[in-house]
């Protein structure tokens, strides 16, 4: 029968489309159901658009430094960001990527269906009134920005991350509730684009999941760029153009033109369907094991919907692992070695345990550090502010974590990810020749520091 599949994937975001491609590669008959646009949050309203926005800021920064590299006749004062043009650029990047993915899916023989999927039973899905049978189902329905359960004046200009990526002007002032990755990246963009930015964070620091030392450097840097940061602050009420918040039991307020709510994301699924099938959830996310299986063995959940790490690159690996498990390959998901990338400039890139976590778990922890200012390429790039630190278990040489605050660090962290996954030790990494002059030399240096001390720093 035509409508019987080995695998049905619900949701065409990164988790979903990667699952579908991998399933096709492993000769499974697969259908991918997407109700909106292929590429999901990441391509359409997440990773890709924000980075397109931030690229504009990075060019702006380059231009500001251009005169020191001998470029003349640049009128820095008059440079402005034309948001309409930037939106066009962003949209064209997104469109190209989305159609590229569609091409890859079709080329792999994935059947694409646009529509709202409804889970009927363990092996049946209804789409656009048609019933589909599938031996295995992968739920990859993603997430939506969380709303804030406080009083909000309906006249207040309240945005979420999706709205801001379609904003065609820069507000004079913006308050951001939530100092996580989304809040910090968008806050950095808005500030650099000319807005007066205040970040309100409930915890006692912004980017609370990052290594404390790197977090400190990042916070200092953002403050030096003029972003106001209020930590240990709880949003109480949003009035027309004022946020009332509580800090140290004192009521405070801050005014804004626009207010962005970036306090996390909720899993997207139809509760009644999940209940009917008896799929277990935890904190409103679908519960999965290390093979991404739900409690119903032929139903898997990958990406944001399981709430494990809520990053695009986690979702795509989960998709691969889920499909491979369906095909009898028992690779497990290792959430301990997933890199984090934060695209302020300097960028923040981390993988593995923070120093504090490592010291809690291991007896004999070593920490190596290397400053970017001792790296030649950083000087050339005009961006000497930065630090890389590496943490190892001295007993076995296992690399427990690598944390970087520095230019282009997001492009370089993969070296640490590979080393950690292959369980390499610092002594081996220092034996790998790194090209000169590159920023990547900081990796070799930090592992030198773990061993006997860096070469280019005392």
């Amino acid at each position, binding site marked *: 029968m035509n409508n019987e599949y080995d695998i049905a994937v619900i949701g065409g975001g990164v988790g979903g489309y990667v699952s579908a491609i991998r399933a096709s590669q492993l000769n499974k008959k697969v259908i991918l159901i997407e109700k909106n646009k292929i590429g999901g949050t990441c391509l359409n309203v997440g990773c890709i658009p924000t980075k397109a926005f931030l690229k504009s800021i990075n060019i702006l920064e380059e231009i500001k430094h251009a005169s020191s590299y001998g470029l003349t006749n640049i009128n820095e004062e008059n440079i402005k960001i034309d948001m309409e043009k930037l939106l066009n650029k962003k949209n064209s990047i997104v469109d190209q990527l989305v159609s590229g993915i569609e091409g890859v899916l079709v080329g792999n023989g994935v059947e694409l269906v646009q529509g709202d999927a409804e889970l009927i039973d363990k092996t049946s899905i209804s789409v656009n009134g048609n019933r589909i049978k599938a031996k295995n189902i992968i739920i990859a329905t993603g997430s939506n920005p969380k709303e804030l359960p406080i009083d909000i004046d309906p006249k207040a200009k309240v945005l979420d991350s999706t709205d801001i990526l379609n904003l065609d002007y820069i507000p004079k002032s913006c308050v951001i509730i939530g100092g996580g990755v989304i809040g910090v990246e968008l806050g950095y963009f808005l500030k650099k684009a000319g807005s007066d930015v205040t970040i309100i964070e409930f915890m006692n620091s912004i980017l609370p999941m990052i290594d404390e030392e790197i977090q400190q450097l990042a916070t200092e840097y953002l403050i030096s760029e003029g972003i106001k940061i209020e930590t240990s602050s709880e949003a109480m009420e949003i009035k027309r153009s004022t946020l009332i918040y509580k800090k140290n039991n004192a009521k405070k307020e801050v005014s804004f033109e626009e207010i962005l709510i970036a306090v996390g994301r909720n899993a997207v699924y139809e509760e009644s369907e999940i209940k009917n099938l008896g799929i277990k959830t935890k904190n409103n996310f679908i519960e999965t094991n290390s093979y991404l299986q739900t409690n119903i063995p032929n139903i898997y959940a990958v990406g944001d919907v399981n709430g494990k790490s809520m990053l695009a690159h986690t979702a795509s690996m989960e998709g691969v692992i889920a499909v491979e498990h369906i095909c009898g390959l028992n690779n497990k998901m290792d959430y301990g070695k997933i890199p984090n990338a934060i695209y302020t400039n300097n960028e923040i890139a981390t993988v593995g345990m923070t120093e504090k976590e490592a010291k809690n778990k291991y007896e004999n922890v070593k920490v190596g550090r290397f400053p970017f200012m001792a790296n030649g390429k950083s000087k050339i790039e005009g961006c000497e502010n930065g630090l890389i630190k590496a943490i190892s278990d001295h*007993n*076995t*040489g*296992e*690399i427990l974590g690598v944390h970087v605050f520095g230019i282009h660090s997001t492009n370089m962290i993969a070296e640490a990810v590979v080393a950690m996954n*292959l*369980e*390499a*030790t610092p002594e*081996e990494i220092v034996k790998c020749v790194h090209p000169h002059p590159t920023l990547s030399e900081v990796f070799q240096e930090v592992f030198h520091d773990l061993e006997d001390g860096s070469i280019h720093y005392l």
Partner: protein
Amino acid sequence: MAEVIIMPKLGFNMKTGKLIKWYKKEGEEIKKGENFFQITTDKTNIDIESTRGGVVRKIMGEEGEEYKVLEPMAIIGEEGEDISDLSEDGKKEQKIQKESVVDKKVKPTEKPIKINSGKNKKNIKISPRAKKYIDENSIDVNLRKINGKGFDNGIKESDVIKYIEENNSLISPVARNLAENYNVKIDEIEGTGARGKVLKEDVERVIDERKYKENNAIFEADSSKKVRKSYKYEGVRKIIGERLAKSKAEAPHIYFKNEVNMEEVIKFKKQLENKNKIKISITDFISLAVVKSLKKYPEMNSSLIDEEITEYDSVNIGIAVAAEEGLIVPVIKNAQNKTLGILSNETKGLVNKARKGKLMPEDYSGGTFTISNLGMFGIDEFTAVINPPEVGILAVSSTKDKAVVVEKNDEKIIEIKPIANFVLTVDHRIIDGLLASKFIKSIKELLENPLELLI
């Protein structure tokens, strides 16, 4: 010039020796006569001294391994001296001086086997054991790739095993370190990584299983016991233990106790010492009394080996001495011909040697009867286990003042006398109660009338 140090042959029957430990590392300086390494034969641990001074250039013997006598163990030479010629084929072959004697200076005669491998005609040296290991396990390996750590960079069995372990198993560096830290054998770990690569997780699984087993074993045994330390039952301890267990299991032990009044022998000892200005111990008098009694009752001076009972003319007295590593029994040979002074001197020499761990095998073998004297430790009374194939052992306890009934002028009165308990253990298969009683009575009478000792 540099010298090869070999596994010494300490006696006629010694075929192999187990290397216990090195006192020096490669590169360390060593003086002539300084302890270099320790070996164990079937009877005891022996420290081997260096026969020359210099620098330890190369160590070939591995701790815990058994080696044939005369196998090269190490090279001692000068710092920076070229030691390659020591092993050049035939050129410097050195003769064994005398095979029969205890001699630490004997030189190697067994040359490593040479085998040609493939096109390259250069010789590769490989020990017979390594060769055997490769043959028996049908290992297909290019010998040229194995890093020989043995004599003259020859390949040893352990080199082969190490090479196989390192090269036939895919393992991540972290996993390898972890496995080494926890003494997990790599070939026993099932790898779950790509192509069966052993990952950290796989090593942790083995460690967890081991811990689980250990915890449960302790739990089953007795959950209230907290282990302070545990170590192997091996070496001298094991040799002594097994021998005693065998003795107690095979020889029906019976015991005969006598109280011996030591008053006269103590007096006599003082007189002799004052007169001759030499120190003679009570043990020496006891030894002499035992020797004389054994001469009188030769059935007691015998052994039971393989269905044959042998009585000896030679009285070889073993004297049990507590040494650091356990009980050592130096033997005074042909004591039947020796005077008290000679007996005393010899005993002193042997006991000192035993306490320093320097007894040679012939110093503690060939006994016909044993005395175990714990008098100096204040013991009131104890029994001893026969040291096979001997048929008896005498346990001597402390001399203590006691109230005893004595006859004076046909009257029984109580007096304080220095009394020691003697307990004789005999193998009841051969010795009956009457003989044993006569024998211990003879010892008692000799000690209570010490002048008779000198007759």
